[in-house]
């Protein structure tokens, strides 16, 4: 478990916080409790927009460049390119983030998965002949890395002022025996029978990305998706708060108190 950068952070208690006393996890959380979350936008100076997400030992940087004129072909709709990388020191086994340009197969798959999730909300039709580049970098993966990437990338897109119809957050649920465990740590992920990851668009209440690894009962699977959506909706609430705070600050700097 990596060090936590800032405190005190936003802590989300699950609904079952009081009733499920006996299901306390290794790190003292309840089964449906997320790790403390910290978010920030606009911390990278060269990017159009940037987002940082931290949840427990998972830390993600994400930058958005563009929309800018596409050098290649003419396209009626804008195009979006995503690039997800795990740092070599991220603590995730088998991750690339190695020298040179080649991405590991997994990173390639996750990049296209991220592209699909984001494209479901970005109004690409308003950016003809343009491309938007989203690069996410996982500094530390203490479990639920990719779900956090979705969240950080959404924040960065919003920060860049890209037109979106929705805001997306990701979340992971691990199935350990009969128990569903929200936002698993790396250790919990390693011992889990299966994991379910969902990208969730909060306004439309739609699942934009789904991935399941390992082995999961059908009923558990359906339940896990529901739990993921609830968790993602909580995260979306925090994201909005974070973005509004940033916007207010920006307005204040320009001498306007109200939007």
């Amino acid at each position: 478990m990596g060090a936590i950068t800032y405190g005190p952070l936003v802590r989300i208690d699950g609904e079952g916080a009081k009733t499920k006393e006996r299901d306390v996890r290794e790190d003292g959380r309840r089964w449906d409790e997320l790790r403390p979350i910290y978010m920030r936008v606009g911390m990278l100076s060269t990017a159009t927009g940037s987002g940082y997400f931290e949840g427990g030992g998972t830390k993600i940087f994400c930058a958005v460049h563009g929309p800018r004129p596409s050098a290649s072909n003419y396209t009626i709709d804008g195009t979006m390119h995503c690039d997800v990388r795990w740092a070599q020191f991220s603590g995730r086994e088998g991750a690339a983030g190695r020298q040179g340009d080649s991405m590991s197969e997994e990173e390639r798959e996750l990049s296209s998965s991220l592209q699909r999730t984001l494209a479901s909300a970005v109004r690409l039709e308003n950016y003809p002949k343009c491309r938007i580049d989203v690069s996410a970098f996982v500094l530390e993966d203490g479990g639920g890395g990719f779900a956090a990437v979705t969240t950080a990338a959404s924040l960065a897109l919003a920060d860049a002022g890209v037109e979106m119809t929705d805001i997306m957050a990701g979340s992971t649920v691990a199935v350990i025996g009969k128990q569903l465990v929200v936002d698993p740590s790396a250790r919990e992920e390693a011992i889990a029978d299966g994991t379910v990851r969902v990208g969730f668009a909060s306004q439309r209440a739609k699942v934009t990305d789904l991935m399941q690894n390992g082995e999961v009962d059908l009923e558990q699977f359906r339940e896990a998706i529901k739990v993921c959506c609830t968790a993602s909706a909580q995260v979306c609430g925090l994201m909005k708060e974070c973005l509004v705070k940033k916007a207010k600050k920006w307005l204040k700097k320009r001498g306007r108190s109200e939007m």
Partner: protein
Amino acid sequence: MQFLSDAECEYIRNGAKDGIRSDGRAMLDIRPVTLETTVLPTASGSARVRIGKVTDILVGIKPEVAEPSQDFPDEGIISFTVECSSLASPDFVGRGGADLSAELGQLLTRLYTSPVTRELRRSLSIIKGKKCWILHIDALVLDSGGNLFGALSLAVRAALRVVILPRVIVIPGEADDDDEIEVDEEEFKMLERSRDAPIAVTLASQGDRGIYMADCTSEEESCATASITMGVSPLGKSCGAVSAGTGGIDLDTLSSMLKDAAQLGLEILDATDRFLKTDIDNRMSGAPIVPIGFFS
């Protein structure tokens, strides 16, 4: 990916709303499947699957003795290479098929690293931590007409059911580390646990709530808004799932899609197992088998 005009898409979507598809199938019907095993004399196990006389997949398995990975010393290794040849679609010319190949390969890897197939991988172990079988499974997409995931997983499973491995004799050495192995080229065995192998089922949503179809043609695929591919084990468990498409799916629809995918998966598994049983029995008993051939 085929490009359809808006009007063509509208036609397919409106049909889907009323439960009608352009080839007369119901929403969850699958096209006729042709399955032939042991089609490649140079591979230890092979299968060819065609769906609806369009989608065409050829799978061959080459075994090799290797060292097991350190993380799983008592398990063999199953490795996948999927090649989307430029025969199948003009989109695959050059490096065009690389992304799709990676995606297909990742899904297969996901299905075959799941705990569902742990016993199958264990049966590939020869000496714990020292020697195991590695199965190189090469899949070739010869023609693509939709439902690649389904066809591919079916072909891989069929090839695994019929693969034969030479018998391996372990010759104990003086110390524990000195064990040697000898491959007996005369005697072969089949993989007992290959029946645990899962298949993948894809259901595509056509934008409207509660409307989704199984075994899409490429036209239907290109106007689907989102799709879910789920690995179904013979016990009805989900052993790997991915989504595609940018449309998003609401929770209720997703939930019923997963239920139907599992149901359909079990039906397909049941039907193919019945076929494979007679196929294997016939081959064992030496009964003459009429090959279907490449151009039936």
